[in-house]
């Protein structure tokens, strides 16, 4: 047991599984995911909510896990990149990224893929402008974005065709 430092117990659904954790109020979601749950697919870069590397989905919507306290996911559903597809069976979004060469170093990719998942859940067939607008907060320092946009346009058209 810890000494005198106030903690609270939280319970949430993580990648489809009910989990619980004891956290300090100030603990950030990204640290709890990476350290307590050993899910290191969620990346930290800017640490101030602007780059999107740490994007996870909470109740289906994108969130900066670097800029929220873990206590805030109490009772909610969190999806990290580990919850999407398997090494044998990639999620269609991951597949499209591979097919279009939409990643180089890969550091932005987990956040980017989850942001795309959030977008397609809200809007199954976004236009290229809508894709660019939605992904504005996910930065990539390698690809120049063109191939990422191509991958998502491809997905959007496929969804559109059913």
């Amino acid at each position, binding site marked *: 047991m810890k000494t005198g430092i106030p903690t609270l117990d939280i319970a949430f659904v993580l990648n489809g599984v009910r989990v619980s954790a004891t956290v300090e*109020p100030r603990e950030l979601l990204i640290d709890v995911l990476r350290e307590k749950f050993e899910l290191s697919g969620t990346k930290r870069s800017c*640490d101030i909510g602007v780059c999107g590397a740490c994007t996870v989905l909470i109740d289906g*919507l*994108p969130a900066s896990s670097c800029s929220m*306290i873990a206590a805030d996911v109490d009772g909610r559903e969190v999806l990290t990149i580990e919850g999407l597809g398997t090494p044998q069976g990639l999620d269609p979004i991951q597949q499209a990224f591979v097919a279009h060469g939409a990643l180089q170093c890969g550091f932005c990719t987990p956040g980017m893929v989850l942001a795309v998942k959030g*977008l397609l859940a809200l809007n199954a067939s976004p236009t290229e402008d809508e894709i660019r607008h939605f992904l504005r*907060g996910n930065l990539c320092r390698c690809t120049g974005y063109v191939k990422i946009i191509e991958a998502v346009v491809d997905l959007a058209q496929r969804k559109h065709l059913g």
Partner: protein
Amino acid sequence: MLPARFELHRPDSLATALALLDEYGEDASPYAGGTELLIAMKARVVRFAHIIDIKRIAELRGIVARDDGGLSIGALCSHHELANDPIVRKHAPAYARLSANIANIRVRVAGTLGGNLCFAEPHADPPALLCALGAEVCLAGSRGMRKLPLQDFILGELSTVRTDQELLVRIEVPGQPEGARAAYRAFGHLERPAAGVAAVAKPEGKGYAWRFFAGSMCGRPTALTLLEDAMAGQPPAEALESLERTAQAAVEHIETYDDLRGSADYKRHLVTVLALRSARAALGLEERVA
């Protein structure tokens, strides 16, 4: 970096939250989306021993159409909700559009309108248009409620008239007269606007009575009264000519300063461009990229 240690309170009623604020005073801060507060706490620019998470308080939620055609917006409404809410899209489409363009999707999902207004970071989109629409804010304290124009609520950079014992509960946007039009246009290289201008036009004379507010220039939105006077009641084409003629003079003396988002001169120039764009957009004219 981690914020300094704090105690987290999660009241589920307004009364409990107000009691906590009374008890802890300046050692406490209300906390909602955290998009600004948490970043400041992580940077250790601010520090609170008690964080009062107000997200469970039902009284602070919801968007309701008012009898006069306006909107009553719960302080906890996120920018994402406001961008997509059918009532907002119908009654205040310009405001829905503004909300859809704030920062990035993660900020829009987490960030609340109440938090945005209370934090009073000058480089923000909502205040200029809400001031132009004549919005009022309702503050609750354990001794009662008060309501005041948003324009008087924001005192300056990171500063409002809200006391440590009060919570912003609702934002009231009055209905606009038949035929009124509104638009907001902003520009910036970073996530926050370097400058933004809101235009609201209400039918008057052969044209409109105009309200213009420039945001992000200084601590509080600035009314561009010179433009308003020059354009009042003129037919639209003439009003736009007056705007172009007067814009330079209208921005010359507005308070602003050099900052990360641009020099004072640059921001003043942006306001002349954005005033024209927002006026044209309000009139439903095709936007001419100047």
